[in-house]
C-alpha cells in the first residue's frame, strides 16, 4: 500500500514508465480473471488497455488522489465494470436504445456508441471550430470546472461560458445530424 501510494504520486507527475510497469504487472492475472467470463481474448486485451488508461486518467485528472485499497483492487474494479459492460453489449439486439452503464462504487457512467456513430462523431468534432473544441475538451476531457475554464479562457462571466458551451454542443449535434442525412 505504501509503495502503491508512491506509484500514484509518480503517475500524477505523468511518469509513463510507471504506468508500463503497472500494466505489465497485472496483465496476466487480469486475463485469468477475465477468462472466467465468456469474453473473447481480443476483447479482454482491449478491456485491459481501456482499464489501465481509465485508471491513469482518474489519477492525472485528480479523481483519484488517495488510495483506499491497493492499486490492484482498484484496477480490477474498473476492469470488472468494463467486462460487464462488454457482456451486456454483446447481448444487445437493438441499436436505438440509449444504454448508459453505471457503477456506484467507482462513480462512473459509460455509454454504448456504435462504431458507425463513433466515426460520425469524430468527424463532427474534427469539423467543429477551434474555440468550441477547446471548451468541450476542457470540460469533458480535462474535467475542469466551469469556474476554472472561465478563468483559464478569460470569459467575462460564467453565464457567457455556459451559453457558449451549449452552443458548441448544439453545433456538434447539427454536424452529426447532417452526416446522417
Amino acid at each position: 500500500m505504501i509503495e502503491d501510494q508512491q506509484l500514484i504520486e509518480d503517475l500524477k507527475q505523468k511518469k509513463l514508465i510507471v504506468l508500463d510497469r503497472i500494466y505489465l504487472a497485472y496483465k496476466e492475472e487480469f486475463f485469468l480473471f477475465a477468462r472466467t467470463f465468456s469474453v473473447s481474448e481480443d476483447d479482454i486485451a482491449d478491456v485491459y488497455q481501456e482499464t489501465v488508461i481509465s485508471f491513469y486518467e482518474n489519477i492525472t485528472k485528480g479523481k483519484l488522489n488517495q488510495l483506499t485499497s491497493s492499486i490492484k483492487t482498484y484496477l480490477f474494479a474498473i476492469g470488472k465494470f468494463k467486462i460487464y459492460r462488454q457482456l451486456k453489449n454483446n447481448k444487445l439486439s437493438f441499436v436505438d436504445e440509449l444504454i448508459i452503464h453505471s457503477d456506484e462504487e467507482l462513480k462512473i457512467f459509460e455509454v454504448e456508441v456504435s462504431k458507425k456513430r463513433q466515426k460520425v462523431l469524430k468527424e463532427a468534432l474534427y469539423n467543429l471550430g477551434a474555440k468550441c473544441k477547446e471548451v468541450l475538451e476542457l470540460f469533458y476531457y480535462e474535467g475542469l470546472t466551469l469556474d476554472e475554464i472561465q478563468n483559464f479562457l478569460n470569459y467575462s462571466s460564467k453565464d457567457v461560458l455556459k451559453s457558449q458551451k451549449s452552443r458548441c454542443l448544439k453545433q456538434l449535434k447539427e454536424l452529426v445530424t447532417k452526416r446522417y442525412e
Partner: protein
Amino acid sequence: MNKEELIAQYFSGQISQESFLALKTLLEKDRAFKKDFYAQLEVQQIIAQEKNIPLKERLDQLDQKSAPKTKWYLYAAAATILIAIGSLFYNSQPDYQELYAKNFEAYPNVIAPIVRGNEAPNENKMSLAFRYYDNKGYAKAADIFKLLYNETDEDYAFFYYSVSLMGAGETTKAISTLEQHSWNEPQNYQTITHWYLGLGYLKLGNKEKAIFYLKKVAVSGKPLTKQAKEILRKLQ
C-alpha cells in the same frame, strides 16, 4: 441541486456518492434528461478516445515487446524437414550402419534464424548452441542445449539436445533420453521423436525396435512417412 449542477459535478470528477445516486435516479425517471446526458457522455467518450490514441499505442508496443515467442516454427519444421536423401538400392542383406548413415541428418536449425534479434533472455546461449550445431560441433551443442533446457524448460531445447547427442555418436544416451522424456507439446514432437528413435535403433542394430518406431512414423502421415516406409521395405 439542479440537473445542470449535477452534470457539472459529474464531469469535473468531484461528485459525491449522494449526487451520483441522484443522477442515476434522474436517468431512470426523466427521459429527456437521459437523452441530454447521454449525448454529453458520448462527447466525453469520443474526445477521450482520440486523446488516448498515443497511450494506447504505447501499450500496444509494450504488448509486442513482452509477447511470448511464436511457435509457428514448430509447424514450419515439420514441413521444411529434410526430403529425399537419395534413393536406396535394393539390398538383400540390409546394412544397418549404411541405412543409418544415409538417413541420419541432423534436424535443420529452424529456431535461431527466426528468433535472432528478438532479444530473448537466453539468446546468447541459444545462438551459441546453434552455432555449434550448424557447424557439426554436436558434443558442445549438446552440452549447451542441455543447460538451456534446464533453464527454460523449452521443448525445442530438449529436442536439439537429443539430436545433438545422436550427431555426436552417443546413440544409446540419445535413445534413453528421448524415450524417457515427456514433451510439453507432444503433438509437435511425437513423430520426429519416433523417427530419431527408429534411426538410433537402426544404428545399434536392433532391428525389432527400429521397425517398431519407424512403423509409427510410416503411418503418421507426416513428411517423413515416405522415408520411413522406404527403410522398412529394406528391413523386411
